[in-house]
């Protein structure tokens, strides 16, 4: 893992001290709320319906056990005993008091964490593949480049007052586990024609009220030029992005207007730029890379007798392995996904006690590494197959062994109207009820991969546009209604869901989802996922299931 150097440490400590002063002046009345609000937002502190919300950055989703224990400690001491993992690999606390936030930030700084880049019109926390360094087939470790971008973008003076927020995601695999095509910039590490390593640069993806899939503006950028090219993209955006209308201010609007022209401007800017002074020196990239040296894996047999025996003896363990364990690139190891979607509970929530349990497991069994995923789950990236049974038993005892990764109850949901000041409708209760409807693990396994994503307003924090089944909560004359979108995907085959028709009331929506699943099961080919069946069959079959004859009127 990356460790702070003296500059990182100083920067974060100074920022905490500065915010402590700002909070004191606000509490004394010296600063007005109007003056204070942008200052607190720059430190990740929002005001929600019932309380403040502090969003803590987890750069590219990587955590050590020490950091996880500190997050647990903060949840117990300063909050209501839990935290909430978000769709950008961050964690949010829903109940911190303003007077405590400077102390919380100091506690975070002790473990090299902060809340910078989690709000405001800056380059936000960088996200990446949660399986980085563990999955087979990676071209490179995306964390190296994510860390470089983090350092470059943190408090970058030229890009701290952008027209709107700006999100960058990096991956190095063919499979996209970071939703890069719905980010302002998506970077896919790839090999060029002569075997040289570089990036495919995608720009202008995004969700919200006007969703777009990103356009590739450069098929291949040699890796040494990453920062100068990002600088060129940011300069064009900073110059031309609209500042008069926040709903048209994201870079996706510029790219959608004329992608070819946007590309031409970026390329011109880049051609003119002083690459030597903008690109990171090779020494610095090497220094960062050293922090991501692979752990010292044991030489193990590919198969584990103990593991196979436990699977045969314990059907619940076997079921969990099928859904929550993935192959590792190192022989004898596995990637473990920890579901934060227990049936009938808020997606992404985790108690302090559970955080401590995960920290203990990471320390003992996963080279001290934990990852947060953008699907609001956690991951232990490097677990010996021999240890999987012990890990499962501990997770099970901590109520963290729900065997549902990628299944219908592994729902992404934004906080919605239960917490959020912007929401029009509740999301979490809908997620809880859908999960309860499909609580039977055998039925869920039979339905197979199905990504349900729920947002409580058009800002789309619940990624509903890229759900196989997307659900958008809307307010209709003071009542919650839920629109259904079908056919979205946030993966390598990214697509935007298409709205089916009229919305459903809160009491109708779970039945509507069940009707969609029933029609899928009745029409699927062998082994065909919901998304593939939808793409093959087309929307009419599914609309018919939702609305019956009404769809044709």
């Amino acid at each position, binding site marked *: 893992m990356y460790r702070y150097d003296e500059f990182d440490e100083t920067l974060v400590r100074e920022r905490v001290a500065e915010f402590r002063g700002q909070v004191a002046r606000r509490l004394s*009345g010296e600063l007005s709320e109007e003056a204070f609000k942008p200052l607190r937002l720059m430190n990740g502190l929002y005001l929600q*319906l019932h309380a*403040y919300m502090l969003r803590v950055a987890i750069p590219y989703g990587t955590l050590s056990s020490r950091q996880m224990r500190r997050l647990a400690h903060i949840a117990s001491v300063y909050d209501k005993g839990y935290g909430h993992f978000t769709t950008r690999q961050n964690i949010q606390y829903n109940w911190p008091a303003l007077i405590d936030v400077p102390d919380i930030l100091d506690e975070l700084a002790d473990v090299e964490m902060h809340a910078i880049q989690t709000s405001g019109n800056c380059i936000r926390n960088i996200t990446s593949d949660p399986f980085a360094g563990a999955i087979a087939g990676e071209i490179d470790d995306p964390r190296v480049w994510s860390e470089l971008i983090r350092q470059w973008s943190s408090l970058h003076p030229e890009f701290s007052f952008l027209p709107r927020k700006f999100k960058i995601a990096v991956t190095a695999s063919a499979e996209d586990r970071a939703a890069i095509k719905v980010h302002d910039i998506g970077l896919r590490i790839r090999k060029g024609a002569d075997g040289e390593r570089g990036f495919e640069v995608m720009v202008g993806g995004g969700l919200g009220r006007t969703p777009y899939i990103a356009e590739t503006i450069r098929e291949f950028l040699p890796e040494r030029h990453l920062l100068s090219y990002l600088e060129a993209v940011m300069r064009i955006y900073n110059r031309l992005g609209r500042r008069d209308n926040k709903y048209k201010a994201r870079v996706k609007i510029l790219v959608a207007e004329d992608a070819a022209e946007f590309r031409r401007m970026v390329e011109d800017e880049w051609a003119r730029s002083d690459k030597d002074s903008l690109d990171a020196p090779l020494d610095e990239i090497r220094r960062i890379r050293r922090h991501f040296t692979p752990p010292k894996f044991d030489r193990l047999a590919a198969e584990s007798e103990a593991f196979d025996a436990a699977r045969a003896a314990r059907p619940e363990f076997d079921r969990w392995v099928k859904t929550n364990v993935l192959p590792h690139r190192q022989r004898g190891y596995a990637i473990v996904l920890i579901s934060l979607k227990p049936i009938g509970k808020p997606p992404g929530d985790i108690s302090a006690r559970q955080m401590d349990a995960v920290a203990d497991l990471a320390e003992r069994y996963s080279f001290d590494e934990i990852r947060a995923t953008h699907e609001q789950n956690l991951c232990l990236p490097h677990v010996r197959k021999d240890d999987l049974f012990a890990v499962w038993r501990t997770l099970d005892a901590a109520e963290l062994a729900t065997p549902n990764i990628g299944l219908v109850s592994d729902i992404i949901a934004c906080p919605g*109207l239960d917490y959020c000041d912007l929401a029009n409708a509740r999301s979490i209760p809908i997620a809880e009820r859908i999960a309860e409807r499909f609580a039977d693990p055998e039925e869920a396994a039979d339905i197979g991969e199905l990504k349900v994503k729920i947002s409580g307003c058009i800002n789309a924090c619940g990624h509903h546009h890229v759900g196989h089944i997307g659900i958008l909560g809307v307010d209709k004359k*003071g009542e919650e209604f839920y629109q259904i979108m079908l056919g979205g995907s946030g993966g390598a085959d990214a697509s935007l869901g298409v709205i089916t028709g009229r919305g459903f009331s809160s009491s109708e929506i779970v039945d509507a989802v069940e009707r969609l699943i029933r029609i899928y099961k009745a029409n699927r080919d062998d082994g065909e996922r919901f998304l593939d069946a939808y793409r093959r069959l087309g929307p009419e079959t599914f609309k018919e299931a939702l609305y019956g004859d009404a769809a044709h009127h």
Partner: protein
Amino acid sequence: MKAITANRLYDGVVLYVGPNGGFVERFEQAALFDEAAANAELEVVLTRDTAIASAYVIEADASGPIGREALRESIRRYGPTIRKDLGKQSEAANERL
């Protein structure tokens, strides 16, 4: 009728303007105003009080928030409709949502 709601500065807790002009935590103790009086009182609150993070007028009658924002304001009144083991939503009143 109208009520005036706010979030307390130091911890964000939901407040209402009470009968004597001070803040109360429970809607049951909130004062009700007609529209003109509510707007006038809000002005007073916003200029006088620095110990709040936000304040605005809501539609309400003696039973609670009403009108278009009734659901949102009921959730503010009783707490989230989830995690009923915690906070003010653990109180029985939340069953009404």
